[in-house]
């Protein structure tokens, strides 16, 4: 299709810089994910890896996949992981007891072996393979997105249709798995109201604090009909701190005297 490039490489200096920076960050994120004890830290580390992989896709002339990577992985998948972590409990960390003896050591040895095999094997087998580059393929239909769309809707049309079935099945499966049967019937508004009155607690709003000529702050208790004060009219924290304002009896006595006609106020102000 596209003519072979003259050299084996089509990587310029800028891409080299991008590669080394993002590759180091991606590996650091991956290592941080398997090394951190808390699951939330692991999620944040792997989000770093995903973002760096998106940059690497874009550097590999796959801008569409890079954007999809950011939207789908860091945007949707990692946030779903964080949601589930919140459900399961943020502070759930690994137990350090090995149920299979020597499993960790064997796993690390096998992992290192596989890493060496992959890097050395692939590296030796393919290191001289030429890189054609995607410039021609991307420009065939006017852009990367158009090229991918052309492939999806012609050669891979059946796979694409099957994908929709897969997604619907996955959504149904998640709903079925996450569904929980109700043990008790849903309480109606009447049930809730009855329960509220049966509980013995104050059913409505608590009384407001007292409003007097000189004070109406929350620390002023309201007056009861018998002349005493209502404890529940002052918020509990204020009461607990002992900041309740003692009632100024002068006000009340003045009012009583006026109403009972035995005020000792000056004659002029009485009329």
């Amino acid at each position, binding site marked *: *299709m*596209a003519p072979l490039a003259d050299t084996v490489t*089509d990587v310029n200096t800028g891409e*080299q810089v991008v*590669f080394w920076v993002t*590759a180091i960050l*991606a*590996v650091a994120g*991956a290592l941080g*994910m*398997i090394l951190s004890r808390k*699951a939330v830290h*692991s999620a944040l580390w792997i989000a770093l*890896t*995903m973002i760096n992989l998106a940059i*690497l*896709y874009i550097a*590999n*002339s*796959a801008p*569409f*996949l890079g954007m999809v*990577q950011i939207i789908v*992985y860091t945007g*949707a*998948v990692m946030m*779903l*992981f964080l949601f*589930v972590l919140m*459900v*399961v409990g943020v502070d*759930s960390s*690994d137990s350090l007891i090995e149920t299979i003896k020597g499993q960790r050591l064997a*796993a*690390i040895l*096998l*992992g290192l072996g596989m*890493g060496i095999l*992959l*890097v050395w094997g*692939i590296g030796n087998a393919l290191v001289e393979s030429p*890189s*054609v*580059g995607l410039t021609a393929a*991307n420009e065939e239909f006017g852009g*990367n997105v158009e*090229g*991918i769309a052309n492939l*999806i809707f012609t050669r*891979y049309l059946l*796979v694409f249709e099957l*994908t929709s079935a*897969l*997604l619907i*099945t996955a*959504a149904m*499966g*998640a709903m079925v*798995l*996450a569904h929980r049967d109700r043990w008790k019937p849903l309480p109606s508004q009447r049930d809730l109201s009855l329960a509220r009155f049966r509980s013995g607690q104050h059913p409505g709003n608590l009384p407001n604090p007292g409003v007097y000529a000189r004070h109406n702050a929350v620390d002023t208790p309201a007056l009861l009909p018998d002349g005493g004060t209502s404890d529940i009219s002052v918020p509990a924290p204020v009461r607990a701190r002992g900041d309740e304002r003692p009632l100024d009896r002068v006000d009340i006595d003045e009012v009583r005297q006026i109403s009972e006609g035995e005020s000792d106020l000056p004659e002029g102000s009485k009329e």
Partner: protein
Amino acid sequence: MNPMNYVVLSALLFTIGSLGVLVRRNAIVVFMSVELMLNAANLAFVSFARMNGNLDGQVVAFFVMVVAAAEVVVGLAIIVTIFRTRRSASIDEPNLLKY
């Protein structure tokens, strides 16, 4: 430097992901490691697409992303269901199923 470095990086990430699957106990972290392995495979697909000069690799990577998203949805639902009954997200606990 030639685009092979991308493939080597993807092999490295795949190795780290498989190590995570083998070593970690928390089911959610194991799941993240599986995601990392899928992403490493995607990176290899994308760089092979570039080396071969056609877009098929990118389309395959796109389908891998779709499958990964579906897998995450179902897998996390299973983890939540197991957590509800066993109060634990450790992958050592469900082995009690065999007794």
